[in-house]
């Protein structure tokens, strides 16, 4: 079952290193890791999506919680919240296919965010599966490069 672990860390690589090291040591099936700014200055947010049972996720969360540099740790099954990632995809678009690209983007509520000559960089937010479906839809254009952020997540219900 996909579980989201959401950690507020001291904003230093050592804290991130410690948290990721604990995950590595436990050999968990990690689906994605996303790191960004936290809620306050000096904080970072680490979101981990991991496929595991409730008990393992809970034990992992408690272990993470006590690490030096980890300010808070919460978890919830992804199905009890939302998990979304950002994808940037660079495709080849000759001018005559530009309208076709916009149609595909429209279907997925994606946006063209940059247009180098004969190319377009498209931005999409969504679940992992949604992003993959979008990438498949773009394949007909020829994908030059892409990058995905890993998921960030929020619970719909209070975590505890």
């Amino acid at each position, binding site marked *: 079952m996909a579980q989201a672990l959401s950690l507020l860390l001291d904003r230093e690589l*050592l804290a991130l290193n410690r948290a990721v090291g604990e995950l590595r040591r436990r050999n968990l099936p990690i689906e994605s890791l996303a790191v960004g700014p936290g809620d306050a200055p000096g904080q970072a947010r680490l979101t981990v999506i991991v496929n595991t049972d409730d008990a393992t996720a809970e*034990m992992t969360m408690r272990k993470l919680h006590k690490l030096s540099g980890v300010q808070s740790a919460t978890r919830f099954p992804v199905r009890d919240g939302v998990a979304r990632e950002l994808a940037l995809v660079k495709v080849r678009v000759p001018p005559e296919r530009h309208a076709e690209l916009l149609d595909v983007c429209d279907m997925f509520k994606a946006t063209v965010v940059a247009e180098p000559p004969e190319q377009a960089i498209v931005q999409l937010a969504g679940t992992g599966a949604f992003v993959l479906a979008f990438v498949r839809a773009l394949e007909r254009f020829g994908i030059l490069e892409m990058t995905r952020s890993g998921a960030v997540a929020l619970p719909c219900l209070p975590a505890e």
Partner: protein
Amino acid sequence: MSVAELLSGAQILCRVLVEEGVDTIWGYPGGAIMPFYHALPDVPEIRHVLVRHEQAAAHAADGYARATGRIGVCVATSGPGATNLVTGLATAHMDSSPVLAITGQVPRPMMGRDAFQETDVLGITLPITKHNCLIGDVAELADKTRAAIAIATEGRPGPVLIDVPKDVQNQKTEYRPVSGVGRQVSSARFSLTPDTQHLTPPDDRVRQAARLIAAAERPLLMVGHGVILSGAYDEVRRLAEKTGIPVITTLLGISAFPESHPLHLGMPGMHGEVHVNRAIQHADLIVGIGLRFDDRVTGNTKGFAPRAAIVHIDLDASEIGKNVPVAVPIVGDARAATARLVAAVAPRRCEAWIAEVQGWARQREESYCGDLSPENIVAAIHDAAPDRCTIVTDVGQHQMWVAKLYPYRRPNTHITSGGLGTMGFAVPAAMGVKLARPGEAVWAISGDGGFQMNMQEIATMVQERIAVKMAVFNNGYLGMVRQWQQFFHGGRYSATPIWSPDYVKLADAYGIPGWRVERASDLEPVLARASAQPGPALVEFVIEQEANVFPMIPPGATLSEPIEAEPAAAAGD
């Protein structure tokens, strides 16, 4: 009223250590830590002990910390000095011991350029410290050091490491001593585990535990290191005496409850007595206090205490439910939580249950040739030791014999490497214990394998006049590994026979008295003379080569499946 002074990082480090009450540190100088060593002679409050290998500095600091409950400090230079601390820090981490390691680092402009004696000690020690950090500027040195000590000692203790670049040690800044109030502020600011420090156990859980105790027919108390760390001896004893529940002490819980107490059962687990493990398997309630249900205690957890509901008191929430399912979790300090439980329980007795358990106890035939048995040796060491004596053991067969046979009476007088099982621990750790308890006798008991891992520290004892008594159980084998080979590997003694030097001559070379004991009749006179020595002394016991520790739960088996005698002649592969 504090006045700011312009001091170097090295001087500030010394000042902070003094402020924090540090009186003894263990270390080894080298290039990147030289400014600190340059400042040290101006600080008479701190005694520095020069070890012969940095691993010994970490073990000695650990021993000092375990004996005092206060921070133990070790110092090393960058690179090899820092990496040599690793085993000691991992040992302290597994056994929750508050150790501060101070390492020199190459100057900041050299970092990341593969400089001479540069190593990423933060990266190396990340998973074996409770906290570690680089001191990036002298301005943060004092606060980060105070915070590191606070983190090491608060909550569940553990080792911390601060890495101080050489140029930061030389950098100058204004230094203000911090008063008691300021210290609390700084430690609260860096407080690590807000959810476990203050926790008073919720009343309903304590009441629930008390109800289970009242209803149980076969209850047990299992107590571990947490009882020693929190000083919960009286509370545990009152709980046992009020309820009549028999008490099991784990390897690190030994001496938390008097061995001579009628309610004391013994040590559980891999080498626990049969009746102790059987009691666990028949119990309908286990109240665990300050232990972590380690695999050496539980055997195969699938078959551990199949009939028992478990009440688990521990300061560290992540320990509860980690290895065994827990019916009533109580997150809190062992002393406070046990005191509440004592108040909540109704007086009762467990006489029928205790009689049942005692009925399972039986004398075992020792597989022993000659009269210099572990029983005789341990009894003789005890008889020769003064009333106040701490035993530090190494890892292996002798460790189990001493754990099972030495009649500990006073709390925290048994110190050993439990979680990590670090051979070579006893000799250096005993130096730390001795300086922490100068008025007491301290014995370091090792096997011939573990002793040879750190016997270089005899030189430290001589130079620093640290009067540790050393006992070596010499059977010419890495005995515990040999025992496993005999039991589980068809008797193929691969790489376990081990040659020893002449220990009497070795002692002589170091200028300390040494004896070799080969007969039980020599035990008393030799141990009397060794004990009477004002300085360090070494006694070698030449014991039966292939003696085994019984009983033994095979790895992966449950506590219900002990081996109680030699396997039939090795079946071969």
